[in-house]
């Protein structure tokens, strides 16, 4: 094989690799991408990255308030044991956990596969294994329902998400049986 031929092959491979990488970034979409808000667009296109950051921050603020006021029995161990590394699921410290959750929500609701969070770090949302992230935590069905009703829904509405959009373009993902099964009783 001549140098010229080798160069063409390498160049072709490089272009092919770059294209496939771009394609995966552009086409990989979370389950919420098919859900339409009142705007006619998915949740990410409706509320943008800033809206998702606000919701994510509200979730963590409400968890903090809940634990401070009422203890942690009702929320399970996800938030309280972050960073302890008692289990693989609790290896991430609180800041990393927050960034990862933001990236996961962004991706799940139609956004890009990765985001730069408020700590200026980049987190990816499409490669997170929810089963691994919750294995050993023993989160019960009722703890999950309490978390959704007392933390997630108020975080959404307090951040400006309309109740119609909660119904139509947010709820189906977090109430999906497969999604819940990846978190509950792991």
């Amino acid at each position, binding site marked *: 094989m001549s140098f010229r031929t080798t160069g063409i092959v390498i160049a072709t491979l490089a272009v092919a690799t770059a294209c496939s990488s771009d394609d995966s970034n552009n086409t990989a979409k979370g389950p919420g991408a098919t859900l339409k808000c009142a705007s006619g667009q998915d949740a990410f296109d409706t509320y943008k990255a800033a809206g998702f950051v606000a919701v994510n921050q509200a979730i963590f603020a409400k968890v903090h308030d809940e634990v401070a006021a*009422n203890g942690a029995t009702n929320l399970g161990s996800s938030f309280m044991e972050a960073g302890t590394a008692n289990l693989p699921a609790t290896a991430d410290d609180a800041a990393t956990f927050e960034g990862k959750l933001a990236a996961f929500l962004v991706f799940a609701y139609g956004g890009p596969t990765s985001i730069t969070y408020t700590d200026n770090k980049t987190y990816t949302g499409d490669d997170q294994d929810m089963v691994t992230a919750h294995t050993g935590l023993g989160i019960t069905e009722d703890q999950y329902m309490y978390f959704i*009703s007392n933390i997630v829904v108020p975080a959404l509405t307090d951040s400006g998400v309309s109740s119609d959009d909660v119904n139509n373009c947010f709820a189906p993902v977090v109430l999906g049986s497969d999604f819940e099964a990846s978190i509950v009783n792991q």
Partner: protein
Amino acid sequence: MKRVARWGLGSFAAVMVLVTVAHLPPVAGWLGWTHHGGSGTCPFGYGKPAAPAGGAATARRASPGPAVLGFSLGATTRLDVQRWALAHALWCSDGKGGSELACGNAPGSLLGGLDAKSLWFEFASDDTLAAVRAVRVAPTVDSLVTAFHRDADALGGLAGEPAKQTGHADAATLGKGLLSQASAEYRRGDFRAELRATNFGPRGYVLTESYAL
């Protein structure tokens, strides 16, 4: 006679060793004889309880707090709850540090209103009830609305008008779609309560209640 005396002394010594070992803080903790602060104590009241960590808020109250779900915040003890659960054949499990207790499937006849799938109890450092939360599931939106208003009326009597309300606790609002929600929060002194009615679709209509000092 000597043999009886030897057996008696031997048994006494064995019991003393067991009691001593059981009172070692790590063993007492493992047995669940702990206060909120995590230190061990004797289940028969001979241990020295941990000092309250949070000052007046966690010290034993001079008078019982509000009665909610049949329990008195600030007065009902962990042992009271355990006896209540035992008397009604409810399954409960300890949480971390011995300060928490989670019980499942309590009939509505015990609590007033809907059956509770889960009850979560938090105890202060003096072992009195600091918070109780319930998750109840209603089969229909109408039964959810009825339960919400019954609790709201009771809380109105305890704490007056809600400090904060969201949504409308009516069938039209709550029946609208997935995660449609109404809530009411109450505050009076150090007493806080929150009701949330949420539509979980095919899973049912969920009422979460939270009462705390």
